[in-house]
């Protein structure tokens, strides 16, 4: 982050963000989930957040989406405060589970956000059909979610998230529950959708290859408190396909991310040793 991009090009701007969960009751501990987070995301970027469990990557995603508030710092999205951006419906959310509504057909699930903002019926239907075609679920519009496979359900969830043409797509380990084969196929599909819609994506994952394969930049985080330890720019060609996974540069980048992750853990180990020495002294 040597050069600050021009403001109208920045979709997400985090400055000095920290989050402390105050424990309730006497036994519950105060948890410092995030500390001193600075991050700017430019329009059209694909950013992955990666780190050990408990590093606050999901918390950070939820802070960007104004699902939870910050303890300190500012979160600007599209030049607005996160809350204003949420009220302006700038977000598309995809969770680890598809969170589709059982009682609605796939088509009506994708229409949900359009219903909420009160779009007329014809427009809703056309838009939902368009989104379902994009994720290649056109033939399953009339099915109920529980009649589809896990991968198809997650594609429907992506179609729903894109229905409002959001400024930013927030994805919280969206493929974490899928098997490896489905996951790789979904990665390719997501990239195709990202190329076609030119959406900005923030993507939480704990898979290093997935992060490198998908992203323009990989944000490596460490735990307790959650901090950004390194940002790895991914200089792979913009258009990626199956062969990208076999490129030498791809392996180098995977190694680089893996090492920076290990580094962040190593620090924690060192701290523990220092603490132990402090006690024995």
């Amino acid at each position: 982050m040597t050069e600050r991009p021009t403001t109208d090009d920045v979709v997400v701007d985090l400055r000095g963000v920290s989050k402390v969960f105050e424990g309730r009751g006497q036994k519950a501990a105060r948890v410092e989930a995030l500390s001193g987070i600075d991050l700017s995301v430019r329009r059209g970027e694909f950013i992955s957040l990666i780190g050990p469990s408990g590093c606050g990557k999901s918390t950070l995603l939820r802070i960007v989406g104004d699902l939870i508030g910050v303890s300190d710092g500012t979160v600007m999205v599209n030049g607005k405060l996160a809350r204003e951006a949420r009220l302006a419906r700038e977000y598309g959310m995809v969770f680890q589970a598809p969170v589709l509504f059982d009682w609605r057909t796939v088509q009506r699930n994708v229409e949900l956000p359009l219903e909420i903002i009160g779009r007329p019926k014809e427009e809703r239907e056309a838009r939902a059909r368009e989104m379902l075609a994009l994720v290649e679920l056109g033939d399953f519009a009339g099915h109920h979610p529980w009649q589809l496979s896990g991968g198809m359900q997650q594609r429907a969830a992506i179609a729903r998230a894109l229905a409002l043409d959001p400024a930013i797509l927030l994805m919280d380990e969206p493929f974490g529950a899928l098997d490896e084969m489905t996951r790789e196929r979904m990665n390719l599909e997501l990239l195709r959708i990202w190329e076609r819609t030119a959406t900005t994506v923030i993507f939480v994952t704990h898979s290093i290859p997935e992060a490198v394969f998908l992203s323009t930049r990989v944000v490596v985080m460490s735990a307790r408190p959650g901090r950004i330890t390194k940002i790895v720019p991914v200089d792979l060609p913009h258009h990626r396909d199956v062969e990208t996974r076999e490129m030498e540069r791809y392996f180098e980048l995977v190694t680089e991310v893996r090492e920076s992750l290990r580094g962040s853990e190593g620090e924690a180990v060192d701290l523990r040793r220092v603490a132990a020495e402090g006690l024995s002294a």
Partner: protein
Amino acid sequence: MSARRRLRPALGFLLIVALILVAWEVAKLLAGDPWRYEDILGGPAFYWDPPLRWKPVNDLNLPHLWTIFGAFWELDAKGETYVSSLVGAAWFTMRESLLGFFMGAGIGLGLAIVLIHVKVLERGLVPLLVASQTVPIIAIAPVVVVGLRAGWFGVAIVATYLTFFPVTIAAIRGMRAADPRAFELMRSYAAGRRTVLRKLRLPASPPYLFTAFKIAATASVVGAIVGEFPAGIRDGLGGALLQAMQYYSFSPQDLWAAIAACAGVGIIAFLLVVAAERLALRNYRQIEDQAT
């Protein structure tokens, strides 16, 4: 679901009923009053003295099934068979309980919607609602029916009283049952409380509601029957029960016939809810095997 799988629960039910009826007569064969039958349908005379004597299964406490069945065809003073007057009474009671059920379901759901949005009320009111259900219905019925002088509508109110509570509890549960992420999703769309209620909470609750409706349907029948006692209404099953009780010592089969009619109405009410559930939940994932 295939026709065969649909029929299986019904067959199981009939089998259990048949077993109970057989056990009934076997008990009488072992320990009832002596059986004395002269030429049944022109056949030989039948006499049987059971080896044991056990009061609960004598002819006064547990009449023979055919005696009860025969009671249905006895003629009253107006020349009407008992079964047709029971059917009339059942229809009368059914209307009271239907009205009670729908009022109870409506009030129960409305109450749940209020409680779920106002935490203070939920904390304060739910214990009171629980307490309200521990008061015996027999004590409440005269207050409502006689106090309000409301006639058969008062009876429906008693049925409502028994109906709303399970619906409230189930609706509160159902409206909170959705995945927490579904609420996050709605929040990310900046959906207001009303939208969340309409698009998420209410449509997520039917699987829970129908469990309560099954309890409420039978409870509303009980409420309607009990409500008729203090109301002095003689047109319903409550009235039929009261009348049969008066003649129990010399005609116990009448009371048993009236009890059978009450059970029949309860079963019909239950089955109506099951049918409605099948229809309403066809778009929902079938998680558990429905208790039908």
